[in-house]
């Protein structure tokens, strides 16, 4: 019998597969799938204090082995989220990770306080890394990260993940700042800042020029960030996100050190993929006589011993 369960962040995840924030919206379109088979967790679209319409279109363009998006945190705002969306999310049999962001310390503190108290919020994820809004992503430097995480953890005891940008030379100091201020874990990574140009006009394809690259193209970048963070913080819960599109990439993410693995762009292409990956993961572990998913987590740091010994 293979055990896919993960106990982290004060929660029991049925399996390590999560929907990452954004591509699946609030996950409600996928409710029938949640009801038919278990999935570890659902991270919501980032919620902000006030409604945001998002960036002007075009907001999406594909790229080799991925896509660039510039959605711009379009969301209905905190009040409508609490009144309309959260009650429906509560009905889904999965762990709910609520992603939120605000542009200043007061906003982050207020949101963390309200969301942390709301029924049905299992984990909070502070988005410090969106490349598609005004200003620099806070997780481009340790000081802003520190300030915002401190504001959030001051306001709530609900476990908080800090979601960081891959667009830094060294993610470890930024992660350290978040953890020192009380973040319970890390989500690595958000999209990689990118650009595409319309060849017939010579103008950037996305209306807002820059976008965030996701999909298979960023897997090696995400793996490197997860690996670096796992090496620096052996015990910290890590959600690995970025370029997971099949069983192979999920295994690599786990081996690099991800306790939980988020699927983003690939859900837009194939809504059923996360559920299929759980089945494939179980079969893979079973074939290799590995009894627990947790044996896989971070095994690349241990010379892959767990896997080899049990093969």
């Amino acid at each position: 019998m293979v055990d896919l369960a993960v106990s982290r962040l004060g929660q029991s995840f049925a399996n390590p597969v999560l929907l990452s924030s954004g591509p699946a919206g609030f996950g409600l379109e996928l409710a029938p799938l949640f009801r038919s088979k278990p999935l570890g967790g659902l991270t919501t679209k980032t919620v902000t204090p006030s409604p945001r319409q998002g960036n002007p279109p075009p907001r999406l363009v594909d790229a080799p082995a991925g896509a660039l998006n510039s959605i711009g945190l379009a969301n209905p705002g905190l009040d409508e989220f609490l009144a309309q969306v959260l009650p429906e999310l509560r009905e889904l049999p999965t762990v709910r990770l609520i992603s939120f962001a605000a542009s200043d310390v007061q906003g982050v503190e207020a949101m963390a306080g309200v969301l942390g108290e709301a029924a049905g919020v299992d984990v909070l994820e502070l988005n410090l890394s969106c490349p598609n809004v005004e200003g620099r992503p806070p997780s481009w430097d340790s000081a802003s990260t520190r300030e915002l995480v401190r504001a959030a953890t001051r306001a709530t005891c609900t476990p908080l993940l800090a979601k960081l940008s891959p667009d830094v030379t060294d993610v470890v100091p930024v992660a350290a700042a978040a953890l020192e201020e009380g973040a319970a874990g890390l989500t690595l990574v958000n999209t990689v800042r990118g650009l595409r140009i319309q060849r017939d006009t010579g103008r950037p394809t996305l209306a807002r020029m820059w976008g965030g690259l996701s999909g298979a193209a960023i897997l090696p970048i995400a793996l490197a960030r997860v690996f670096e963070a796992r090496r620096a913080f052996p015990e910290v819960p890590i959600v690995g996100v970025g370029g997971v599109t099949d069983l192979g990439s999920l295994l690599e993410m786990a081996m690099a050190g991800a306790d939980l693995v988020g699927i983003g762009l690939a859900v837009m292409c194939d809504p059923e993929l996360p559920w299929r990956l759980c089945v494939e993961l179980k079969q893979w572990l079973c074939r290799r006589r590995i009894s627990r998913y947790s044996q896989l987590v971070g095994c690349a740091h241990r010379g892959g011993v767990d896997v080899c010994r049990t093969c």
Partner: protein
Amino acid sequence: MSISKGRRRTATPVAGSFFLCWQAAYLDRRRQSGGYAVVELIVEREARGQPGQFLMARTECGPALPRPLSLLWAEGKRVALLVKDEGQLRARMAEAPLGTRFDVRGPYGVPYRDAVEHSRRYVLVGGGSGIAPLRFLWQRHPELVESVAFGLRHTVDENFLPDTPLLIEELGQPTAGDQALHVWRPGLGLIACGPREMLRQLAAGLPERKGVYFALEERMGCGYGACQGCVVMTRDGPLRLCTDGPLVALDRLGW
């Protein structure tokens, strides 16, 4: 605000239904002419698509984001598409050997018939691959149609789109937009699908906004209403083309 709750007018997704699952679709027949291809696919399960609805399509080797393609017609397990023969996916549809497997899911989008008022008859204006959903509407719901203006840039074989009057630009014939503006009169509606320039020309030339609908072709992400990639800004706020469109009333667009 454009969130899913209470806004969807398309069918509610059902677990394991065609809505969220990929189905294998095999290229069964094809005819090509004038830079376009009509491709007929055999799908595993009946698609039950209606005029104006589209399928999301891809191949196993990409592209990373599936592509929306309108139904030219759908009968049982057989569906037809009208595609331009360029671009990653469509060029493959136009060139791959018969029997090649594609993946499709859908149909998505509000059927045109459900998106327009039934109190008037419409001039249908199609440019290029935009002819597909309108020809389907004309065949299925002739009672809604006053006249059609379908335009292509280049000449096509006689049987490329049977029983369909076509205006060919390279033969010096009027464009579909010109023709539509010529036949339109007060009291009629108009439904248009085609290149942005054609829609802009119509918006500028029509004295009336009521009863006018445009199908927009933004890049799409998921197709099922979650990602907000295909949003267009309207007077009433953002609108997701995949679940609230693709037809949008011109007075909402504010053009």
